[in-house]
């Protein structure tokens, strides 16, 4: 007889999505085990910049992010760490098309009572002396935005989860999802079985492989991402509360980090990773960019256009990792219709850190109540059954790569919204 442990829920993946879900489930009294293939928070989570821009094109996503900040503020005293750094955020436009985008965003934000307004260019120049601003035609500013510090967020989830009885197993890759007549029965990992009526696939870039363990399909793809962090330079001081900046024309985002500046890029030709080809003990924190990486060169080039003092000779570190994209850049959160007890929680398309506080809550509601206090239509796990060609892996990958490549490039048109408000 194989030795088995039992729980109410097994979470596959110890990144922010899995850790937040585990913490919330345990808060409702569930007995939860998190199985992580490497170390907790060491995958995409550990490579994230954590930028929090609350205003999204979709009103319900905006609500989730606003509520997420409230959740984080509750976690901070419980865990004794500072997670949210409120720096404010800017979007800048150097073309009429981008100015139209900004105007629409300001209107949309104001219509739901979100604190956002245009900022005069001379004010932008005054606030960000280290940034080129003479080519800008418009900008908007959200004072309540900022970033979440990924490491602190992870430690808060773990600490509070532990207090609530969550068990964490690291270096424990799940190799089998146990099924019995359409029901999930648990998983097996390292030759041990873990029995539970609920299994959550929070595997990030590995999520599509986890789905295959249950003979299911999940249309996510693993996409490479790069950002640079300059070393503090007395000639270019960056205050720790300088606003984050999004510059969609150049495909870059930026925020302060330890006296230097983080600049990241949604590259137009991102690299696709085949997770199956990576070794079992793959450690994302050891990923490195080649000295002649075309993505890094494009990143430095774009950074230089906005911050002329950044060149290939600037002392900097390059961080590279893998993010999980979906064909519509929205996550898959919720249950699979044909496998009772199997839930997905993956595909955050570069927004996992900031979505995780609310997503954990939503996942716990979907798992324990079968329904959520949020409208989850746009993130439902089974929506891809309506996507043409979702069974064709190559097609899915092409769509995800294209979505990632157009992510900052496309002109955004916010959805028409009516009366979104927080009701948590």
């Amino acid at each position, binding site marked *: 007889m194989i030795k088995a442990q039992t729980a109410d829920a097994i979470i596959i993946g110890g990144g922010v999505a899995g850790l937040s879900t585990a913490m919330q489930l345990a808060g409702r009294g569930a007995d939860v085990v998190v199985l992580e293939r490497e170390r907790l928070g060491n995958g995409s989570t550990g490579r994230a910049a954590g930028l929090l821009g609350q205003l999204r094109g979709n009103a319900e996503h905006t609500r989730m992010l606003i509520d997420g900040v409230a959740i984080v503020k509750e976690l901070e005293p419980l865990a004794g760490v500072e997670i949210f750094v409120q720096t404010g955020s800017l979007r800048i436009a150097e073309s009429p098309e981008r100015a139209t985008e900004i105007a629409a965003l300001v209107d949309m934000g104001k219509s739901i009572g979100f604190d956002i307004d245009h900022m005069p260019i001379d004010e932008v120049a005054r606030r960000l002396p280290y940034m080129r601003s003479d080519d800008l035609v418009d900008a908007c500013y959200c004072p309540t935005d900022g970033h979440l510090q990924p490491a602190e967020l992870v430690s808060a989830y773990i600490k509070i989860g532990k207090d609530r009885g969550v068990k964490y197993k690291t270096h424990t890759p799940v190799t089998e999802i146990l099924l019995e007549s359409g029901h999930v029965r648990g998983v097996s990992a390292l030759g041990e079985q873990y029995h539970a009526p609920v299994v959550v696939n929070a595997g990030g870039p590995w999520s599509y492989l986890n789905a295959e363990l249950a003979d299911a399909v999940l249309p996510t793809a693993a996409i490479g991402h790069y950002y640079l962090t300059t070393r503090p330079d007395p000639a270019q001081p960056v205050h720790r509360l300088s606003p984050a900046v999004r510059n969609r024309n150049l495909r870059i985002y930026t925020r302060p980090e330890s006296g230097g500046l983080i600049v990241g890029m949604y590259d137009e030709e991102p690299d696709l990773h085949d997770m199956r080809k990576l*070794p079992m*003990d793959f450690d994302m924190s050891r990923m*490195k960019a*080649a*000295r*002649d990486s*075309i993505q*890094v060169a494009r990143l430095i080039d774009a950074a230089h256009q906005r911050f002329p003092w950044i060149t*290939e000779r600037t002392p900097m570190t390059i961080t590279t990792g893998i993010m999980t994209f979906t064909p519509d850049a929205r996550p898959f959160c919720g249950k699979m219709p044909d496998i009772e007890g199997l839930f997905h929680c993956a595909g955050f398309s570069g927004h996992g850190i900031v979505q995780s506080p609310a997503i954990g809550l939503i996942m716990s509601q979907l798992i324990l109540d079968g329904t959520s206090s949020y409208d989850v239509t746009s993130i439902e796990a089974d929506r891809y059954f309506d996507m043409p060609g979702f069974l064709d892996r190559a097609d899915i990958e092409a769509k995800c790569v294209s979505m990632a490549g157009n992510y900052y490039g496309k002109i955004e048109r916010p959805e028409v919204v009516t009366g979104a408000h927080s009701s948590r």
Partner: protein
Amino acid sequence: MKILVSIKRVPDTDQKIVATQDGASVAVDHIPFVINPFDAIALEEAVRISELLTEPVDVIAVGIGEDSYEQQLRTALAMGAARAIHVRCSHRLDPWNVARLLRAVVEREQPNMMLMGKQAVDDDANQTGQFLAALLDWPQATFASRLEIDGQQIRVERETDHGIETVKLPLPAVVTVDLRLNEPRYASMAGIMKARKKPLDVVTDQELGVAIEPRVEVIRYRSADTQRRCERLNSVDELLERLTNEVGIKRP
């Protein structure tokens, strides 16, 4: 001025490196290869010299090994070398034979300076620069953490166990570089574009007239034991007993 920089292709040692089962080599299936980090520093220094001096400076990258070396030489070209030389050689090489091949390249190219990493991070031999200086009968400065060119002389700060030693030597000379000399750059878009058109010459060990005579043979590789075994002990007495019986430390 002409500066020759040697480029060794090594597995990225920040990855988990293990020996193959039979101990004959290192398992490199999933390991990316990079320019030996010390050689990247040497290359960066040469490129900076070329950017700093008013006279034209020719930076030439040279790599010795199988066809796969081309990848790292292209990287060197993207980082700013003007041209590259690939010494195609399928023999297993030790530092002595690498130095002999480099001498042949130096005699062909007649550079004013040979810049190279103080050692390669795969075998940590720290011998090639010294061998080469002896073979050429050139002055050498090892472990450079600062380098200044002053006409036909160079001034080098060397890191020693006790502090910084400053030396002056005439050119031509061999300089091996240490970690703190500079921070190598990532290639720019312009650098990557230009690299595609830069010359990468191939020459074989036979064409250089060097017969490889191995002096050192690698017998076996064994992985370092990185497993940490932790145990909580109940008393100092128990610790002393375990140290005495299991580790073999004698009580005073």
